[in-house]
């Protein structure tokens, strides 16, 4: 650790992240990155791929913690390793037909990470569809919805930004946009199912 940063135990990490403590997240990120980076590089990956896999793994962990649905039966390290290992296996399978054994340098335990990952994948797909729908919906709906739901701007701010005469107009526009998004989203989601 060093550098005068507070060092956390696993429980403290979980608690801090639940409080949305940025420093704890950063520290957790730094703590376990070398392990995953080493693992991916050992198994014919690049630095960038290691970064992507690790970030996805951390996201799964983070979202679980924020949901409050995390039941940690092992160390965070082991959990992250299991998640990232699965993610990397999937990537490798997509990249090549290399389905062979990987070199494990950490004991690989049943951590419940597998099930979490399946749920995370489902969510990932949903969010992917949402991103596509937002791409398709066109302006100004996209900016309006992103402003309201993604960037947490108030209706008054958006009214000023988009030049509506009053907040009610902006609201009406927003609802119309939501309806359009709904159609796009559910159509695509069902298609991909």
């Amino acid at each position, binding site marked *: 650790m060093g550098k005068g940063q507070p060092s956390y135990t696993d429980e403290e990490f979980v608690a801090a992240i639940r409080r949305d403590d*940025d420093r704890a*997240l*950063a520290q957790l*990120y*730094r703590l376990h*990155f070398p392990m995953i980076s080493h693992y991916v*590089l050992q198994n*014919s990956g*690049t*630095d*960038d791929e290691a*970064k992507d896999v690790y*970030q996805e793994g*951390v*996201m799964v962990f*983070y*979202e679980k913690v924020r949901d409050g649905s995390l039941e940690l039966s092992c160390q965070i390290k082991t959990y992250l390793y299991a998640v990232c290992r699965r993610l990397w296996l999937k990537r490798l399978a997509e990249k090549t037909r290399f389905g062979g054994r990987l070199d494990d340098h950490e004991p690989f335990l049943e951590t419940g990470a597998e099930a979490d990952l399946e749920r995370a994948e489902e*969510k990932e797909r*949903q*969010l992917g569809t*949402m*991103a596509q729908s*937002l791409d398709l919906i066109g302006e100004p709906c996209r900016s309006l*919805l*992103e402003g309201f*739901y*993604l*960037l*947490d701007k108030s209706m008054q701010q958006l009214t000023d930004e988009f030049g509506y005469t009053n907040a009610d107009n902006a*609201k*009406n526009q927003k*609802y*119309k946009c*939501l*309806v359009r*998004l*709904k159609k796009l*989203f*559910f159509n695509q989601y069902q298609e991909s199912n």
Partner: protein
Amino acid sequence: MKTEADYYALFEAYRAGGLADADRTTLEHRLAADPALAQRLQEFEELTGTLTAYGRRQALRQRLAAIHADMVAEQAPRLDLAKVAEQDERGEQFASGQAPRPMLRISRTEQKLRAFWQGHRATMMVAAAVAVLAVFTTLLGLEMYRTSQQSTSSRNGYTMLRREVERIKRDQRSMNRAITQIDAAAPAERLNPGKFSGTGFALTADGYLVTSYHVIQGADSLLIENRARQRFRAEPVFTDVAHDLAILQITDKDFTGFGRLPYAFKRGQSELGEKVYTLGYPREDLVFNDGSLSARSGFEGDTGFYQVSIPVNPGNSGGPLLDDRGNLIGVVSGRQMDVQSAAFATKSSYLMRLVDSLSAAGAGKPYNLPRYNQLGGTTRPQQIRKLQDYVFVVKVYE
């Protein structure tokens, strides 16, 4: 009839808790009664839920990217430039307020090459090491083979003509074995034939002999053997490396002398085209060879030697070179391998000069050189018959 957008306004207000109590209970009743409306509410919630989740995901991604960028920046010294470039791109995309860093574009091919190098570094190292090793082994082996092929007595195509007895002996051993099997009586004793052999001839009647320096080079002891297989112990008295000459003296007590020498030594130089011949022991028997004097300088223009067109072989070294009238004009020394029938012989004038300087120094017994030539006017066979008792095998032991 309300539009869907109106329902959405209603739902949003309902979720935000912004409806009056009366309106809320009406809506809840309607939801309970109308499944289509309930379905619509569910869809609305899923949609807004996904939207907010998407927003949170984006924000989280951005945060992680920022954390990663910080981490990479801390490890700046061992920073991968390609990664910085990408970090920069992301930084700009999400407007995370990072200062743009200088970036280095790496082409796709180079990226692939780098990845390949990363993956196969160890294998390539081993391959390179093996290649280097193979090259050096081959070069070294070739060099060793060449030096072993090159006998020590030959350089620049010049071959000295002393005979390696061991080699010939080895070649003949199988033959000898066959003979001894036929002839049941084994030979009484086997004399050590020595390591090298050459030819020598008498310089004075009282026991001085001449041979080539290279014949006795590195010798421990010397034996002189005449045609009748009589052996005498001898010692080198003087050697002249530059002219490849050696003077030996017989040291045996029971040696009485050669008798009067039939030939005389020529002090001047001989003419080109002179008919010359030599006697020597390239094998166990005395061998005669003749030819002409073809040049008055030797190998690479050495004026101490003649070039003669006599076929000579290892073992001829140190043999006498005589002209038609029986004057001794040289001492056979060597031949040039890459030239047809070019043998070299030390000029007798150098031998005479050497003898003169030795007698002037007054060391050892005086040199009584023969004055008169008894061979003039006789035929070759007659000359050789007289000569053969004064030509010897010089055996060298190391």
